[in-house]
């Protein structure tokens, strides 16, 4: 396992307080010695990863190696899986988000999530975007927020005339951008994306990828993908997860095989398993 320095140095100027730096490339999320169990089966072992701010971090690896599990740990959505148990530390802006003292509901507003299959609410486009903001007590101009979120998700021009039609009438790609707009409307700091393009055609995929590139100026993005070309196209850093070969029979335990800048991981992988995976020999 190698954890080279971030390719972009923290840009906190000396005049700023030394508390968690806000510049791009500083650490927004960090997992330390993270272990996740489902029942008695260890799903993730000793994961150490630092997610840089305002960059895109991709998680790649073969099926069942715990990429989605790791992603769901970051906003405590994994708590909802029956029998899931977490050990170790996850820090968000330098503060621990594990343990009984942390309210996952409050956390999830700050760390949004986009799912594999577009899952808009069976409500109007407008309500889809407005609902999250409303339940979180948004007091501003809702029309303005809905328009801003839809524009930010590059969907406004396509839906501005059907804001009050059902979100389910949109195409798959539009639905996924609606889900992104819905996430943006609660103004999170981090967006977790769990294979957001796997149900989309290549054109819709390209639009979502362009959108991610736009969004990273304001948001830190973590994306799980099976598509290595996608990881290579969009991400700044990539973590390659692998199944732990020392794990006992019948249990699939994921570990981080390699985590470095995307360029380096794809052009000059250090770990032989990573190299085998990205060249298509395994996985």
């Amino acid at each position, binding site marked *: 396992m190698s954890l080279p320095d971030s390719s972009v140095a923290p840009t906190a100027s000396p005049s700023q307080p030394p508390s968690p730096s806000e510049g791009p490339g500083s650490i927004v999320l960090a997992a330390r010695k993270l272990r996740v169990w489902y029942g008695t089966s260890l799903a993730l072992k000793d994961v150490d990863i630092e997610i840089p701010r305002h960059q895109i971090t991709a998680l790649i690896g073969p099926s069942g190696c715990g990429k989605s599990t790791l992603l769901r740990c970051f906003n405590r959505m994994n708590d909802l899986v029956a029998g899931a148990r977490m050990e170790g530390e996850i820090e968000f802006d330098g503060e621990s988000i594990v343990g009984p003292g942390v309210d996952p509901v409050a956390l*999830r507003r700050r760390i949004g999530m986009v799912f594999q299959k577009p899952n808009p609410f069976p409500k109007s486009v407008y309500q889809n975007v407005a609902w999250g903001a409303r339940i979180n007590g948004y007091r501003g101009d809702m029309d303005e927020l809905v328009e801003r979120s839809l524009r930010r998700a590059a969907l406004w021009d396509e839906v501005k005339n059907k804001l009050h039609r059902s979100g389910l009438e949109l195409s798959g790609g539009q639905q996924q951008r609606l889900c992104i707009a819905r996430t943006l409307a609660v103004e999170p700091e981090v967006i977790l994306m769990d294979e957001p393009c796997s149900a989309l055609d290549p054109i819709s995929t390209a639009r979502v990828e362009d959108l991610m590139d736009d969004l990273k100026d304001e948001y830190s993005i973590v994306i799980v993908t099976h598509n290595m070309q996608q990881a290579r196209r969009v991400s700044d850093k990539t973590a390659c997860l692998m199944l732990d070969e020392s794990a006992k029979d019948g249990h699939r335990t994921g570990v981080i095989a390699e985590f470095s800048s995307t360029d380096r991981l794809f052009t000059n992988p250090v770990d032989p398993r990573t190299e085998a995976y990205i060249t298509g020999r395994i996985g």
Partner: protein
Amino acid sequence: MSPSIAEPKYQPHRMARRWAGPLFGIACFLATLTGVLVLSVVLGAVIAAALRQPGAAPWYHLGTNLRELFDLLLGLVQKPQSSDPLRAGFRAGVVGSLWMLGLVGLMAIPVGVGAAVYLEEYIAPGALRRIIQTNIANLAGVPSIVYGILGLAVFVRAFGMKEYALGRTLIAGGLTLSLLVLPVIVISTQEALRTVPNSLRQAALALGATRWQMVRDHVLPAALPGILTGTILSLSRAIGETAPLLMVGAAGSIGVLPRSPFDRYTVLPVEIYNYAKNPKVQFQTVTAGGILILLLLLLTMNATAIIIRNRYARSG
């Protein structure tokens, strides 16, 4: 090695196969027909009984017969109880049954839906949930007369504590019937909640919603058609129940219509039962008319359930 043509490897029983399929289909069709046939015969017999009177039009005068049937039912709904078959009607029973419908709906639906939401959306899967679930499933199978005895002991008599006893009132009957339909409402609501896709729950929670906000704004609206269908069907079961109400004292004859939940009452099935016991042959018409009124009430409720389901299925 390929098998030789003289000795093919596959030897389907061609004749048997050709006949078995259609035969099975016909058997299933006959099974379907049984229920429909029996119901039509019963309904026909009841209608015939309702129209049996001197000077009635022959059965093929459909228009006249329909008008007569309509007049008969309308008259029966308005007439009070009486020992004279020409003056006897079901006003007290219809009013009592409608009271009962409202009371059971008000008491059983919130409790039943609440229990189902707790079991599906809140409690973690495990031993406790399994125990509760098994209990509810068993309660749904308990014979209704047992609920009648329970209602008599708990609500009507309050275990002998006179100051708490409700007596033979509407509210005591309503509480008894609510207990009776509660397990059915819980189970059908659970079924409806299970049809709500998990992706919807995850979408809501990932936006920072609390469980209550998720249930209120997404899960319940999505499950509503199913909940309403199951609830209305269980209410129609409550309306048709006779045995437990005989137990908790739906009166055989009452002179004054109930005006509050703490009044004495009777219900349609009990009235039908009492009229049917009357030896005078003319009461057969009255009894048949009462059965038709009850059936119409139940069919209306079931039709409402179907309409609600279809409407939501289209728009959803």
